[in-house]
Protein backbone atom coordinates (compact mmCIF):
# COMPACT_ATOMS: atom_id res chain seq x y z
CA UNK A 1 0.00 0.00 0.00
CA UNK A 2 1.35 3.44 -0.86
CA UNK A 3 -0.36 5.34 1.95
CA UNK A 4 1.86 7.32 4.29
CA UNK A 5 2.16 6.24 7.93
CA UNK A 6 -0.32 8.91 8.89
CA UNK A 7 -2.93 10.71 6.80
CA UNK A 8 -3.12 14.21 8.25
CA UNK A 9 -5.48 15.25 5.46
CA UNK A 10 -7.78 12.28 6.04
CA UNK A 11 -10.56 14.52 7.31
CA UNK A 12 -9.02 17.98 7.03
CA UNK A 13 -8.58 17.47 3.30
CA UNK A 14 -12.27 16.85 2.56
CA UNK A 15 -13.43 20.50 2.30
CA UNK A 16 -10.29 21.27 0.28
CA UNK A 17 -10.99 18.41 -2.13
CA UNK A 18 -14.62 19.49 -2.60
CA UNK A 19 -13.67 23.12 -3.19
CA UNK A 20 -10.96 22.26 -5.72
CA UNK A 21 -13.25 19.81 -7.52
CA UNK A 22 -16.10 22.32 -7.86
CA UNK A 23 -13.87 25.20 -8.89
CA UNK A 24 -12.29 22.98 -11.53
CA UNK A 25 -15.65 23.00 -13.29
CA UNK A 26 -16.30 26.75 -13.10
CA UNK A 27 -15.39 29.90 -11.13
CA UNK A 28 -17.71 30.46 -8.17
CA UNK A 29 -18.21 32.81 -5.25
CA UNK A 30 -18.54 31.53 -1.70
CA UNK A 31 -22.31 31.27 -1.47
CA UNK A 32 -22.63 29.48 -4.81
CA UNK A 33 -19.85 27.13 -3.79
CA UNK A 34 -21.70 26.12 -0.62
CA UNK A 35 -24.93 25.59 -2.58
CA UNK A 36 -23.02 23.54 -5.16
CA UNK A 37 -21.61 21.26 -2.42
CA UNK A 38 -25.08 20.84 -0.96
CA UNK A 39 -26.63 20.09 -4.37
CA UNK A 40 -23.85 17.74 -5.49
CA UNK A 41 -24.09 15.73 -2.28
CA UNK A 42 -27.91 15.72 -2.19
CA UNK A 43 -27.73 17.57 1.12
CA UNK A 44 -25.79 14.75 2.79
CA UNK A 45 -22.73 16.91 3.42
CA UNK A 46 -23.94 19.38 6.01
CA UNK A 47 -21.46 21.68 7.69
CA UNK A 48 -21.13 25.20 9.06
CA UNK A 49 -21.28 27.13 5.81
CA UNK A 50 -19.07 29.90 7.16
CA UNK A 51 -16.16 27.47 7.42
CA UNK A 52 -15.75 27.48 3.65
CA UNK A 53 -14.25 31.00 3.64
CA UNK A 54 -11.19 30.30 5.82
CA UNK A 55 -10.51 27.28 3.58
CA UNK A 56 -10.81 29.43 0.45
CA UNK A 57 -8.47 32.05 1.91
CA UNK A 58 -5.86 29.45 2.79
CA UNK A 59 -6.02 27.88 -0.66
CA UNK A 60 -5.63 31.33 -2.17
CA UNK A 61 -2.61 32.06 0.06
CA UNK A 62 -1.12 28.76 -1.14
CA UNK A 63 -1.68 29.95 -4.73
CA UNK A 64 -4.06 27.08 -5.51
CA UNK A 65 -6.84 29.62 -6.17
CA UNK A 66 -7.05 33.20 -7.30
CA UNK A 67 -9.84 35.59 -6.39
CA UNK A 68 -11.22 38.61 -8.18
CA UNK A 69 -13.97 41.07 -7.40
CA UNK A 70 -16.69 40.81 -10.03
CA UNK A 71 -20.19 42.13 -10.50
CA UNK A 72 -22.50 39.09 -10.28
CA UNK A 73 -26.29 39.57 -10.41
CA UNK A 74 -25.89 43.24 -9.55
CA UNK A 75 -23.69 42.61 -6.51
CA UNK A 76 -19.96 42.99 -6.05
CA UNK A 77 -18.65 39.48 -5.31
CA UNK A 78 -15.33 37.80 -4.69
CA UNK A 79 -15.16 35.06 -7.31
CA UNK A 80 -12.63 32.21 -6.97
CA UNK A 81 -10.87 30.37 -9.78
CA UNK A 82 -8.54 27.36 -9.80
CA UNK A 83 -4.92 27.93 -10.83
CA UNK A 84 -2.67 25.45 -12.67
CA UNK A 85 -1.09 24.64 -9.31
CA UNK A 86 -4.59 24.05 -7.92
CA UNK A 87 -5.36 21.64 -10.77
CA UNK A 88 -2.23 19.65 -9.95
CA UNK A 89 -3.19 19.57 -6.27
CA UNK A 90 -6.66 18.35 -7.23
CA UNK A 91 -5.19 15.40 -9.16
CA UNK A 92 -3.09 14.44 -6.10
CA UNK A 93 -5.98 14.95 -3.68
CA UNK A 94 -8.30 12.78 -5.78
CA UNK A 95 -5.72 9.98 -5.89
CA UNK A 96 -5.11 10.20 -2.12
CA UNK A 97 -8.82 10.17 -1.40
CA UNK A 98 -9.39 7.09 -3.61
CA UNK A 99 -6.60 5.25 -1.79
CA UNK A 100 -8.17 6.06 1.57
CA UNK A 101 -11.61 4.96 0.38
CA UNK A 102 -10.15 1.70 -0.94
CA UNK A 103 -8.30 1.07 2.33
CA UNK A 104 -11.32 1.81 4.51
CA UNK A 105 -13.55 -0.23 2.18
CA UNK A 106 -11.25 -3.23 2.59
CA UNK A 107 -11.42 -2.84 6.36
CA UNK A 108 -15.20 -2.63 6.37
CA UNK A 109 -15.50 -5.75 4.26
CA UNK A 110 -14.06 -7.44 7.35
CA UNK A 111 -11.37 -9.87 6.23
CA UNK A 112 -10.03 -12.26 8.91
CA UNK A 113 -6.57 -10.67 9.01
CA UNK A 114 -8.04 -7.51 10.46
CA UNK A 115 -9.44 -9.29 13.57
CA UNK A 116 -7.51 -9.22 16.86
CA UNK A 117 -5.67 -12.45 17.68
CA UNK A 118 -7.03 -12.63 21.28
CA UNK A 119 -10.66 -12.89 20.24
Amino acid at each position, binding site marked *: MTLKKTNPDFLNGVPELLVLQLLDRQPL*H*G*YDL*VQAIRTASDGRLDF*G*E*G*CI*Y*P*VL*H*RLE*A*QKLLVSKRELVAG*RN*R*IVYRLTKQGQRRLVDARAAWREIVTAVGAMLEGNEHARPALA
Partner: protein
Amino acid sequence: MPDPHWHSRLVEALHREGLPDAYVDRLVEELSDHVTDFFEETMSMDARDEVESRLGTPEYLAATARAEFQRRTFAGRHPIWTFLAGPPLAIVGTFLLMLLAFLGVYELVNWATGGSLTANEATHTAPSALELALIHGSDLAFSFLPYALPACLFARLARRTGRRDWGVAACSLLAVLALCYWSVIEQRPDRHGVWIMGFFCWPGLRQLAQAAVPLALAAWLAGLPTRGGRRLIIAHEQG
Protein backbone atom coordinates in the same frame (compact mmCIF):
# COMPACT_ATOMS: atom_id res chain seq x y z
CA MET B 1 -28.43 42.80 6.66
CA PRO B 2 -26.75 40.39 9.10
CA ASP B 3 -27.98 40.23 12.69
CA PRO B 4 -25.94 43.00 14.42
CA HIS B 5 -25.56 40.88 17.55
CA TRP B 6 -24.20 37.89 15.60
CA HIS B 7 -21.98 40.22 13.55
CA SER B 8 -20.41 41.89 16.59
CA ARG B 9 -19.92 38.54 18.33
CA LEU B 10 -18.17 37.26 15.21
CA VAL B 11 -15.83 40.26 15.00
CA GLU B 12 -15.05 39.98 18.69
CA ALA B 13 -14.36 36.23 18.46
CA LEU B 14 -12.06 36.70 15.45
CA HIS B 15 -10.05 39.39 17.22
CA ARG B 16 -9.86 37.27 20.34
CA GLU B 17 -8.15 34.58 18.26
CA GLY B 18 -5.39 37.11 17.47
CA LEU B 19 -6.01 37.17 13.71
CA PRO B 20 -4.65 40.15 11.72
CA ASP B 21 -7.06 43.02 11.09
CA ALA B 22 -6.95 42.80 7.29
CA TYR B 23 -7.83 39.10 7.43
CA VAL B 24 -10.69 39.73 9.87
CA ASP B 25 -12.07 42.53 7.67
CA ARG B 26 -12.12 40.33 4.57
CA LEU B 27 -13.63 37.33 6.32
CA VAL B 28 -16.36 39.43 7.92
CA GLU B 29 -17.13 41.06 4.56
CA GLU B 30 -17.55 37.70 2.82
CA LEU B 31 -19.58 36.20 5.67
CA SER B 32 -21.86 39.26 5.66
CA ASP B 33 -22.36 38.79 1.91
CA HIS B 34 -23.16 35.15 2.57
CA VAL B 35 -25.80 36.09 5.15
CA THR B 36 -27.33 38.61 2.73
CA ASP B 37 -27.53 35.89 0.04
CA PHE B 38 -29.12 33.56 2.53
CA PHE B 39 -31.78 36.18 3.43
CA GLU B 40 -32.50 36.86 -0.23
CA GLU B 41 -32.85 33.16 -0.93
CA THR B 42 -35.13 32.27 1.95
CA MET B 43 -37.23 35.48 2.14
CA SER B 44 -38.36 34.26 5.53
CA MET B 45 -38.94 36.19 8.76
CA ASP B 46 -37.23 33.36 10.65
CA ALA B 47 -34.08 33.55 8.53
CA ARG B 48 -32.33 35.77 11.05
CA ASP B 49 -32.68 33.06 13.72
CA GLU B 50 -31.25 30.43 11.38
CA VAL B 51 -28.03 32.28 10.57
CA GLU B 52 -26.09 30.72 13.40
CA SER B 53 -27.22 27.19 12.65
CA ARG B 54 -26.40 27.57 8.95
CA LEU B 55 -23.08 29.40 9.17
CA GLY B 56 -21.85 28.19 12.57
CA THR B 57 -21.44 29.96 15.89
CA PRO B 58 -19.04 32.92 15.93
CA GLU B 59 -16.73 31.02 18.29
CA TYR B 60 -16.67 27.96 16.00
CA LEU B 61 -16.04 30.12 12.92
CA ALA B 62 -13.26 32.01 14.68
CA ALA B 63 -11.57 28.77 15.79
CA THR B 64 -11.80 27.40 12.24
CA ALA B 65 -10.47 30.65 10.80
CA ARG B 66 -7.52 30.59 13.17
CA ALA B 67 -6.70 26.94 12.36
CA GLU B 68 -6.88 27.59 8.60
CA PHE B 69 -4.93 30.83 8.89
CA GLN B 70 -2.14 29.06 10.71
CA ARG B 71 -1.98 26.32 8.08
CA ARG B 72 -1.10 28.90 5.42
CA THR B 73 2.56 29.34 6.25
CA PHE B 74 5.53 27.29 7.41
CA ALA B 75 5.75 29.41 10.57
CA GLY B 76 2.08 28.78 11.29
CA ARG B 77 2.32 25.03 10.74
CA HIS B 78 5.67 24.52 12.48
CA PRO B 79 5.88 27.05 15.33
CA ILE B 80 8.45 25.04 17.33
CA TRP B 81 10.94 25.02 14.47
CA THR B 82 10.29 28.63 13.59
CA PHE B 83 10.03 30.32 16.96
CA LEU B 84 12.30 28.15 19.12
CA ALA B 85 14.96 26.86 16.72
CA GLY B 86 14.83 30.03 14.61
CA PRO B 87 16.10 32.65 17.09
CA PRO B 88 19.55 31.09 17.78
CA LEU B 89 20.03 30.56 14.03
CA ALA B 90 18.92 34.14 13.37
CA ILE B 91 21.46 35.44 15.90
CA VAL B 92 24.27 33.48 14.23
CA GLY B 93 23.15 34.64 10.77
CA THR B 94 22.88 38.29 11.80
CA PHE B 95 26.25 38.06 13.57
CA LEU B 96 27.97 36.66 10.48
CA LEU B 97 26.41 39.27 8.20
CA MET B 98 27.50 42.01 10.57
CA LEU B 99 31.01 40.56 10.70
CA LEU B 100 31.19 40.73 6.91
CA ALA B 101 29.88 44.30 7.00
CA PHE B 102 32.43 45.22 9.68
CA LEU B 103 35.32 43.80 7.64
CA GLY B 104 34.03 45.65 4.58
CA VAL B 105 33.80 48.97 6.45
CA TYR B 106 37.25 48.40 8.00
CA GLU B 107 38.81 47.83 4.58
CA LEU B 108 36.97 50.83 3.17
CA VAL B 109 38.17 53.15 5.96
CA ASN B 110 41.68 51.74 5.65
CA TRP B 111 41.67 52.42 1.92
CA ALA B 112 40.20 55.92 2.36
CA THR B 113 42.84 56.87 4.94
CA GLY B 114 45.73 55.63 2.82
CA GLY B 115 46.25 52.40 4.77
CA SER B 116 46.59 54.09 8.15
CA LEU B 117 44.80 51.30 10.03
CA THR B 118 47.10 48.52 8.85
CA ALA B 119 50.14 50.81 9.28
CA ASN B 120 49.20 51.45 12.96
CA GLU B 121 48.84 47.76 13.51
CA ALA B 122 52.23 46.97 11.97
CA THR B 123 54.15 49.66 13.84
CA HIS B 124 52.31 49.15 17.16
CA THR B 125 51.25 52.79 17.09
CA ALA B 126 48.38 53.78 19.37
CA PRO B 127 45.05 53.57 17.53
CA SER B 128 43.71 56.75 16.00
CA ALA B 129 40.42 58.34 17.12
CA LEU B 130 38.83 57.09 13.91
CA GLU B 131 39.96 53.54 14.59
CA LEU B 132 38.69 53.69 18.17
CA ALA B 133 35.34 55.06 17.03
CA LEU B 134 35.06 52.27 14.46
CA ILE B 135 35.87 49.54 16.98
CA HIS B 136 33.66 50.88 19.80
CA GLY B 137 30.79 51.59 17.39
CA SER B 138 31.04 48.07 16.04
CA ASP B 139 31.17 46.66 19.56
CA LEU B 140 27.91 48.42 20.37
CA ALA B 141 26.32 47.22 17.14
CA PHE B 142 27.40 43.62 17.80
CA SER B 143 25.96 43.86 21.32
CA PHE B 144 22.50 45.01 20.28
CA LEU B 145 21.64 44.30 16.65
CA PRO B 146 21.94 40.46 16.61
CA TYR B 147 19.14 40.39 19.21
CA ALA B 148 17.08 43.44 18.29
CA LEU B 149 16.80 42.70 14.55
CA PRO B 150 15.70 39.03 14.92
CA ALA B 151 13.30 40.11 17.69
CA CYS B 152 11.65 42.56 15.26
CA LEU B 153 11.55 39.86 12.59
CA PHE B 154 9.97 37.23 14.86
CA ALA B 155 7.51 39.71 16.37
CA ARG B 156 6.33 40.65 12.88
CA LEU B 157 6.17 37.01 11.80
CA ALA B 158 4.16 36.10 14.90
CA ARG B 159 1.61 38.82 14.17
CA ARG B 160 1.32 37.89 10.51
CA THR B 161 0.84 34.18 11.22
CA GLY B 162 -1.52 34.57 14.19
CA ARG B 163 1.06 32.95 16.49
CA ARG B 164 1.49 35.69 19.08
CA ASP B 165 2.21 33.30 21.94
CA TRP B 166 5.06 31.78 19.99
CA GLY B 167 6.31 35.28 19.16
CA VAL B 168 6.47 36.03 22.88
CA ALA B 169 8.46 32.80 23.36
CA ALA B 170 10.88 33.71 20.54
CA CYS B 171 11.47 37.25 21.84
CA SER B 172 11.93 35.94 25.40
CA LEU B 173 14.50 33.43 24.14
CA LEU B 174 16.32 36.21 22.30
CA ALA B 175 16.28 38.30 25.49
CA VAL B 176 17.83 35.44 27.49
CA LEU B 177 20.56 35.00 24.87
CA ALA B 178 21.14 38.77 24.83
CA LEU B 179 21.60 38.66 28.61
CA CYS B 180 24.40 36.13 28.17
CA TYR B 181 26.42 38.02 25.54
CA TRP B 182 29.35 40.09 26.70
CA SER B 183 32.31 41.75 25.03
CA VAL B 184 35.31 43.77 26.11
CA ILE B 185 37.90 45.91 24.31
CA GLU B 186 41.30 46.07 25.94
CA GLN B 187 44.38 48.08 25.14
CA ARG B 188 47.44 46.04 26.14
CA PRO B 189 50.82 47.49 27.23
CA ASP B 190 52.39 46.45 23.90
CA ARG B 191 49.75 48.72 22.28
CA HIS B 192 48.01 45.76 20.69
CA GLY B 193 44.27 46.04 21.09
CA VAL B 194 42.09 43.03 21.71
CA TRP B 195 38.38 42.67 21.26
CA ILE B 196 36.97 39.69 23.16
CA MET B 197 33.40 38.48 22.96
CA GLY B 198 31.60 35.45 24.35
CA PHE B 199 28.60 33.96 26.13
CA PHE B 200 28.46 33.76 29.89
CA CYS B 201 25.43 33.88 32.13
CA TRP B 202 26.37 36.78 34.42
CA PRO B 203 24.14 39.66 33.43
CA GLY B 204 25.14 43.23 34.19
CA LEU B 205 23.63 46.58 33.26
CA ARG B 206 24.88 46.39 29.70
CA GLN B 207 23.41 42.91 29.28
CA LEU B 208 20.08 44.18 30.59
CA ALA B 209 20.20 46.96 27.98
CA GLN B 210 20.96 44.36 25.28
CA ALA B 211 17.89 42.39 26.30
CA ALA B 212 15.66 45.48 26.41
CA VAL B 213 14.48 45.40 22.78
CA PRO B 214 13.52 41.69 22.70
CA LEU B 215 11.88 42.02 26.11
CA ALA B 216 9.92 45.10 25.03
CA LEU B 217 8.73 43.31 21.90
CA ALA B 218 7.71 40.25 23.93
CA ALA B 219 5.70 42.46 26.27
CA TRP B 220 4.16 44.30 23.33
CA LEU B 221 3.10 41.06 21.64
CA ALA B 222 1.69 39.68 24.88
CA GLY B 223 -0.39 42.73 25.70
CA LEU B 224 -1.13 44.72 22.57
CA PRO B 225 -4.68 44.38 21.25
CA THR B 226 -5.24 44.48 17.50
CA ARG B 227 -6.78 47.54 15.81
CA GLY B 228 -10.16 45.81 15.80
CA GLY B 229 -9.62 44.71 19.38
CA ARG B 230 -8.96 48.33 20.38
CA ARG B 231 -12.19 49.38 18.67
CA LEU B 232 -14.05 46.74 20.65
CA ILE B 233 -12.47 47.85 23.92
CA ILE B 234 -13.42 51.49 23.22
CA ALA B 235 -16.96 50.48 22.26
CA HIS B 236 -17.21 48.42 25.45
CA GLU B 237 -15.95 51.31 27.58
CA GLN B 238 -18.39 53.71 25.95
CA GLY B 239 -21.20 51.60 26.88
